[in-house]
């Protein structure tokens, strides 16, 4: 049991765009921090500690960039740390911030991060560098080809078609129309997705997230500050995370602990978070999920491993509209990572968008009666996975 209750009481996001030429990295982070503080009704002096969310700095080219950001986000003189778990970073930062408050050592924590993925002309060249220099880099392994391999396996196992993945893109872009911060949005068709340029089978361009620049921040608070400042917080009721092996070959076959194509690590992470949050039937008890989905194909295995449906069933539920806005389970009402991916902070954006639904602040994307929401974040060779269950009431 946690020692102290923790809630999200403020959220801030900047618009996610391909290039942000009028703001520096630190100014982006400042904008998000300011927005979150304003949303929480707090000043910088009210913040006891800061956790910074930033993944590889190679995209924007300043090592330990969070140190530079200190002067711009009112962090000087405060406890400050950065966490980094690749694409899962934003979720890990949230969990680190949670520990700051749950431990009783801090009353309030600002979690903030930014990224400028398009400062580098080719993000995948950078992402090739995450692989072993002796054995793997020369195979042109990057995050697109890595996930394409896992997706081929999923398609073979469950008979999923490219068109079924394309419908995920159509739904996400449509949801994003009502998200003023989303990078990609629009009314597109399955044919539009299928006719977009081939990148790495089964992926076409539209199956893949954009390179986004932007920032996000959330303010966490203990029970006392939450009662003072926020009439409708999002309580953090469950956290779970797991790290698997980098070697994808060890995650396939009958002896693997967690099957690669099923993103089965989320069974462990989700199970832990659900146990804490009292979730026994996710499909009935959770109304919104904000999944980390930089590729169209990875919504289905996440939903299945998180217990929303049986393995191989998500594609059919998606086809019949069960994941549309306002349906049984609204999946990525914000548009998700397929529409905005500022990598170093994307996991935090997932938490932020889930929290906004609970707090009733999701604007035109707001769904009625959201009691519980789930966010996920994934990183590395799909090996770091974390999830957060947020609730309108504390469990």
């Amino acid at each position, binding site marked *: 049991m946690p020692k102290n209750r923790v809630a999200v009481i403020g959220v801030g996001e900047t618009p996610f765009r391909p290039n942000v030429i009028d703001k520096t990295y630190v100014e982006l982070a400042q904008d998000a921090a300011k927005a979150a503080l304003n949303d929480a009704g707090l000043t910088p002096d009210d913040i006891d500690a800061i956790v910074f969310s930033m993944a590889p700095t190679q995209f924007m080219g300043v090592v330990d960039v*969070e140190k530079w950001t*200190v*002067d711009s986000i009112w962090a*000087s003189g*405060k*406890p400050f740390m950065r966490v980094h*778990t690749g694409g899962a970073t934003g979720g890990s930062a949230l969990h680190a911030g949670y520990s700051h408050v749950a*431990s009783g050592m801090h009353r309030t924590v600002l979690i903030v991060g930014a990224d400028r993925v398009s400062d580098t002309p080719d993000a995948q060249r950078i992402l090739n560098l995450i692989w072993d220099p002796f054995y793997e880099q020369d195979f042109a392994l990057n995050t697109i080809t890595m996930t394409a391999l896992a997706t081929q396996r999923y398609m073979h196992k469950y008979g999923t078609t490219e068109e079924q993945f394309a419908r995920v893109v159509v739904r996400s872009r449509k949801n994003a129309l009502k998200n003023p911060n989303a990078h990609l949005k629009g009314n597109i068709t399955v044919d539009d997705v299928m006719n977009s340029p081939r990148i790495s089978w089964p992926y076409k361009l539209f199956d893949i997230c954009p390179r986004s620049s932007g920032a996000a921040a959330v303010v966490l608070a203990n029970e006392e500050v939450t009662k003072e400042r926020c009439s409708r917080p999002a309580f953090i009721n469950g956290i779970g995370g797991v*790290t698997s092996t980098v070697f994808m070959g060890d995650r396939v076959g009958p002896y693997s602990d967690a099957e690669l194509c099923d993103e089965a690590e989320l069974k462990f992470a989700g199970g832990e978070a659900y146990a804490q949050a009292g979730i026994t039937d996710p499909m009935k008890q959770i109304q919104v999920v904000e999944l980390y989905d930089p590729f169209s194909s990875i919504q289905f295995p996440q939903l299945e491993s998180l217990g929303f449906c049986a393995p191989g069933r998500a594609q059919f539920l998606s086809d019949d509209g069960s994941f549309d806005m306002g349906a049984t389970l609204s999946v990525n009402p914000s548009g998700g990572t397929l529409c905005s991916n500022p990598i170093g902070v994307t996991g935090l954006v997932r938490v932020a968008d889930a929290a906004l639904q609970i707090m009733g602040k999701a604007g035109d994307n707001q769904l009625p009666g959201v009691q519980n929401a789930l966010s996920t974040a994934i990183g590395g060779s799909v090996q770091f996975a974390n999830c957060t269950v947020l609730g309108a009431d504390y469990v």
Partner: protein
Amino acid sequence: MTDTFVLGAAMHPPSAWVADKRLEEMVFDTAWAALNNANVDRKELDHVTIAASDELDGRSISSMLLSAPAGAYLKDEIKATDSGLIGFCLEVMRIESGRFHLGLVSSWNKSSKAPFEDVMRMRCEPFYTRDIGLNMSIADGLFAQAVSRSFAIDQCEVNAAVHASYKQASQNERGMQAEVPSVEAVATSPYVSAPLRKLHQAPITDGCVSMVVCSGDWLRKHPDRRALAKVSGLSWRIDDYQLGEKRLSSLQGFKQTFRNALLMSGLQDASQLDVIEIDSQTSFHDLACRRALELPTDIRISPSGGPFAQNPYFCTGLVHAVEAVLQVANQAGSVQVKGTTRAAAHGSHGFAQQGNAVAIFEGA
């Protein structure tokens, strides 16, 4: 005061260049040794915290490869990127949150494989400081200039302090046991960034350190296990990025961090500690930190030799935490300070000590 305990610890034998092992082998060996020291099976862990730098590891998202050797396979793992001691701070908070009860914290540094100052130079923001070529040595040179004025430190003192640190370090069986340079050799070593000379700097080494940490609840449920130390105080903070005069000369961040850790420990001031291990990357740091704390002479400062014993830069602070734990556990060997009941470990990170962390341990 926390309800968190150190159950076991291990450090990889330090070296200027660990040539016979890959980094993941160093990490594995050290994590394994810490688990053995704690008499804990990896299966019992409910989480792992690691602390590492991609750039110094020479590989983007280095934890992809290194988290499993660090014991994190199928565990809830988070990586901190500031320093090993910051990783320890995160680990303690995770335990104190009540969600976790038995964890492993690991940190490492194999700078023999990384172009160290090139990595440091890339810390510079691109508008003002990168073009002037700021790096760690130059930042420390600026620091040395500033504290020489503000704490009235002269070169003769610094040269003598280097000699004394190496001499102390030579007694530490866990250190490099490097040759002790004479005061004259220090005084005539080439300038790196005036007034900083080459031998004023603690040489960077390869190293790795792991600690097994548990909650009081866990310990009470396992009365057969014996903790090495209790974490009685913890504090960390960051200073301005810009290297202004006040930032460089006042050691405000260092002093405040120590003060907060002492407060948490229920102590009035640093004189109530028996041992303090200071992350003094240069002897200018060493002397300035000692003066900033206004310590009485009977407190033993860095009996391990501090960074002059071993300096796996990124995790030197966590090395000091292990040394402090060993002191209160009466297991520090040839550098044991008799009767130690409270010991503090300091770690710093960033240009010219932008960040500081302090952990205080008491006998369990």
